[in-house]
């Protein structure tokens, strides 16, 4: 089955139609809207499969279809669709994972009064996300990029009556918009230098040799080549969207949204859009830019894993784990391995969606209790959720050989090891492996083992099939997907790089790294088990302190406060913002307004002076004279019988007529 790029628009259009149906259906039409959303996404999935088979038939090709959006001067603004393995793999993943999450939501959101709206927003999100993937124009990417931001905003704030959710939604939108301004500037710069924003356009696209050559030879600005500057500005957008340091602060707060949203948007798909963008514009990125990307990625990977160690909220632990994993992906881009980044993106999408849905299953069963100290003992009560969650955790941790996360992380570690640039990312990634294994072991132990530590956890029981079936399917892929990209047969990476042949090598080449990462995983799990997992170490009371908090209370508290980033930003940018706003307002009211007021007073003052002078000085004489005149006039008027008003009126009219005649010049 093959699909022409011309029809690629159908993939995002179907969920868009579902969103429109959702918007126009009254609140009672729950099943119609949910049905439309799921059917649309399933259809999109089938078309994505067709797209995938087309793309795989010739992985090196970039099939495009461009069209004119509107005319601009002598030029036109064009948009277009692009089909290549990157697009096709991503679309297939998004529609597949998306469908499972939609189905899960049927159960999870069942009791919500805004059920209909939820599916409407989910469809809107899916449409924007898929549009972003099939876009062949950086402008269209930006448009969809902002629209996924809107969908994310609406869904984080879905329970908008909760002030925390409303605040988190705003924070997410504003924080990502800061990055987006960089994206916008990069876009403008690229547009200005290249004259187009089409990615591929028969040799004239911005990712094709002609433009890249021209950019490479362009002058430098402040020691950066123009291409590096553009690349880094585009990266700003990715930093915001993909929760990279220093703009990662919004992502944990985004967990205020319903859990399926966290799974779909804030774990599997949207937050990975930054990685996708960087992979997409990879040909534009210069070594300088890549170096920065690798370092930011490494910092993020480490930061997320570190903070996750001291969190108690089930979803926030997973959120920081997402931050950390996104850091790994960005790191992979930075060390020159975009295909490894996308491999990890795909496996992560499955196992992280699995983990979030598993968390959702727990939260739903435990009456919205998501503090791990209040949970416990769920492994017996929720066997299916527990076993799938365990598979997801092992994939995330990278338990060797059988779990997808192991292979995709392996690819990243290899690339980071082989890079010609700094080795900081490599070491950061290794430390991250230990931490990841550690905090996930803690999470498992606290949530599923020991005794139930709250009323909610005691009465938890397994959810219905509509919620557990997606878990099982995702768990299958959390294992299976890894085998698409093992070093022995890196099929996925080869296709993403546009190659038809797969050049594998024996696992014994580079076995050192394989063993090293396995050992690190073992160390992390071992440490976690020692501290949290052994029978006498298992938490018995919700209020019992964390072993780490006993060992290093201040560090633990600092980590628990997420390294105080929010406080830092509030004390710096927040204050600057308030100052600027206050100053702008104050200037308006008192300085500019004051000047205007001064002139007004000046006018009033001179008016008063004038009047006084007239009244007292000049009019004194006139008054006397006019008094005489008035008396005379009164005498005359008494003497005459005619109507003086009538005379005056005629006089005035005659005057006006004369004036008009003179002005129009007609008679003369």
């Amino acid at each position, binding site marked *: 089955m093959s699909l022409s790029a011309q029809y690629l628009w159908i993939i995002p259009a179907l969920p868009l139609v579902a969103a429109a149906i959702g918007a126009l259906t009254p609140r009672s039409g729950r099943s119609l809207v949910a049905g439309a959303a799921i059917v649309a996404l399933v259809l999109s999935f089938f078309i994505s499969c067709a797209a995938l088979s087309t793309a795989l038939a010739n992985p090196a090709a970039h099939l495009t279809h461009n069209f004119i*959006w*509107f*005319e*601009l*001067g*002598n*030029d036109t603004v064009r948009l277009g669709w692009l089909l290549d393995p990157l697009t096709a793999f991503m679309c297939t993943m998004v529609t597949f994972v998306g469908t499972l999450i939609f189905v899960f939501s049927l159960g999870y959101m069942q009791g919500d009064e805004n059920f209909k709206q939820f599916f409407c927003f989910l469809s809107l999100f899916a449409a924007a996300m898929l549009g972003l993937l099939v876009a062949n124009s950086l*402008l269209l990417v*930006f*448009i*969809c990029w*902002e*629209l996924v931001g*809107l969908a994310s905003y609406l869904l984080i*704030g879905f329970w*908008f*009556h*909760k*002030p925390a*959710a*409303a*605040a988190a*939604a*705003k924070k997410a*939108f*504003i924080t990502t*918009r*800061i990055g987006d*301004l960089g994206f*916008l*500037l990069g876009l*403008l*710069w690229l*547009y*200005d230098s290249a*004259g187009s924003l089409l990615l591929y356009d028969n040799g004239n696209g911005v990712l094709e040799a002609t433009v890249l050559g021209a950019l490479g030879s362009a002058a430098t600005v402040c020691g950066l080549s123009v291409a590096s500057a553009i690349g880094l500005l585009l990266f700003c957008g990715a930093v915001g969207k993909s929760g990279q340091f220093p703009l990662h602060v919004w992502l944990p707060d985004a967990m205020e949204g319903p859990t399926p949203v966290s799974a779909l948007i804030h774990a599997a798909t949207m937050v990975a859009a930054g990685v996708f963008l960087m992979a997409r514009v990879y040909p534009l990125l210069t070594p300088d830019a890549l170096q920065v990307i690798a370092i930011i990625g490494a910092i993020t990977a480490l930061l997320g894993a570190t903070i996750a160690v001291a969190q108690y909220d089930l979803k926030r632990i997973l959120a920081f784990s997402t931050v950390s994993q996104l850091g790994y992906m960005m790191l992979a881009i930075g060390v020159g391995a975009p295909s490894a980044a996308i491999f990890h993106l795909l496996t992560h999408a499955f196992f992280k969606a699995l983990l979030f849905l598993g968390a959702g299953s727990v939260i739903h069963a435990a009456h919205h209790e998501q503090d791990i100290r209040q949970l416990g003992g769920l492994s017996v009560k929720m066997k299916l959720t527990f076993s799938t969650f365990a598979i997801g955790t092992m994939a995330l941790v990278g338990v060797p050989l059988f779990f997808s996360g192991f292979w995709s992380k392996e690819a990243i570690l290899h690339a980071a090891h082989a890079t010609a640039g700094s080795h900081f990312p490599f070491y950061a990634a290794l430390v991250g492996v230990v931490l990841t294994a550690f905090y996930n072991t803690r999470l498992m132990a606290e949530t599923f083992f020991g005794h139930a530590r709250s009323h909610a956890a005691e009465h938890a029981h397994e959810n219905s099939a509509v919620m557990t079936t997606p878990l099982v399917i995702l768990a299958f892929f959390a294992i299976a997907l890894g085998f698409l990209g093992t070093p022995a047969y890196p099929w996925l990476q080869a296709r993403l790089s546009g190659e038809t042949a797969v050049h594998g090598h024996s696992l014994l080449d580079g076995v050192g790294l394989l063993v090293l990462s396995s050992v690190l995983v073992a160390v992390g799990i071992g440490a976690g088990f020692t501290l949290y997992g052994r029978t006498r170490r298992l938490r018995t009371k919700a209020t019992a302190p964390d072993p780490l908090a006993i060992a290093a209370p201040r560090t633990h508290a600092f980590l628990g406060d997420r390294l105080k980033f929010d406080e830092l930003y509030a004390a710096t940018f927040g204050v600057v*913002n308030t100052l*600027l*706003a*206050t*100053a*702008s*307002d104050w*200037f*308006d009211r008192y*300085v*500019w*307004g004051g000047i*205007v007021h001064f002139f*007004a007073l000046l006018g009033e003052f001179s008016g008063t002076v004038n009047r006084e002078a007239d009244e007292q000085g000049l009019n004194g004489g006139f008054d006397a004279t006019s008094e005489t005149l008035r008396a005379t006039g009164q005498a005359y008027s008494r003497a005459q019988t005619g109507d003086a008003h009538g005379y005056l009126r005629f006089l005035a009219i005659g005057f006006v007529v004369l004036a008009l005649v003179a*002005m*129009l*010049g007609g008679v003369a």
Partner: protein
Amino acid sequence: MNPLPLLSLVVFTPWLGAAVLALLRGISPATTRALTLAFSLSTLALSGLLLFQFDPHSLSPQFVERHPWIVALNVHYHLGLDGLSLLLVLLTGLITPAALLASWSHLSPSLPLPLSPSSSPRLFGSLFLLLQGAALGVFLALDFFHWFLFWELSLVPAFFLIKLWGGPGAPRAAYQFVVYTIGGSAFMLVGFAALFVATGTLDFAQLAQLGRDGTLAVKLSGGAHEVVFLGVLLGFAVKVPLWPFHTWLPATYAEAPTGAAMFLTGVMSKMGVYGCIRILWPIFPTPLHNAAPWLIVLALGGVVFGAFAAIKQTDLKRMVAYSSINHLSYCLLALFAVSYATDRNVATGPAVSAAFSGTLLQMFNHGLSAAALFACVGVLQTRKAHALSLPSSGTGVPPVSLHDFGGVRTAAPILAGLCGLSLFSSLGLPGLNGFVGEFLIFRGVFGLHPVAAAIATLGLLATALFLLTFWQRVFHGPRAGVTATAFAELNPIELATLLPLAALMVVCGLFPGLLTGLFNPLITSWADHLTLP
């Protein structure tokens, strides 16, 4: 030549309506409303006719009417329409009926004092129609003499609309508005008097020709050229307004009744930008070019400080007013950047067309979204007045603050949806109309003056900040304040006000070609002839 003087019909039909309303003393309020609305809709109907016959590829004005008027002064009655005028006529045609619908209560007789002028629907209707006609005259006149008449005449009805139907501070605000604007215009009038003395003509096209070939600079020697330029500039700077000549605006918009505020921000604020493009830039290319580096700084001041001052506002109307300052400053920024870059670099063609397209789109789009936002705030104000048992119009009307509400989205989801749409359109969300204009302005300005574009992005950020704060405080969270008790959803009249605007926001956002098609050949020719004498 057209057999029908279409443009005169466009301008004078609303005035005819005003006269009819003034003369028909005994008619019922219902008839008054119907007549006012019908006459205000004439513009939309006539612009349909114009659209049908309009040829976007013809670069000179179309439907021209030119008759000698005051021969002694070489003054002609001269109307004409090109893509730019057509866009603004369309905008006026759309905004005025919406503004009248938003003023439905002012057109009703339910007010307590039957003898005060503000209880007369006929007066309100005829003032509004006078205002509409004057604005249309400004967009269509091609001779300074009656252009200036329309320009100044628009102030008179606006003054009375604000003063008589506005909030508690309205008399002072209306006074400041009129005196400040007339103050600016006075300098412009003197400037044009000097131009007339030097050249003997007041025709825009002829003056532009003289400006372009340098004759003007020769005739106005010894610094007079610059002084005249500054005078004309000042007139527009106050009107648009250009930062820091903007202090009249927040108070005026905040005190004006909803309908008038919609018209002020939707249409009248465009008169200044229109004047800059139609008059200032063609007639004074060289002085504008020389002043451009400074003017860019002022425009940036409007973009950045306007947006940041909005963050500080708690009065919703003032907030939206500041957002207008910010949005219109983008237009000025683009125009000044074009002027700045003239002759500096030959390869600026695409950037210049982008800047102009963006400016024109921004004028239209800002008209839609700002008017819609004022309408939404007006609805909130009515609800508050209702909850506090205060009159919903006139001087007793309460100001609406950010902290008066909470959870409106629960109570009135349709209002929330439409207001949200306007907010996101205003903050430039792609897919809605605001984005295209702003993107093109940024595209253009970046190509002409990259640093200015980079600084202006701060305005984008601050805009998102205050608009989302507005949305969060008023619509989200638990129901509180005015919303705690009953809060009515939009009634049919309010829906009729907002729905067409909302629909246009989506349509113009997805298909900007519908609008750019009207003026693209025009701006292409502007971009092609961008050289200084």
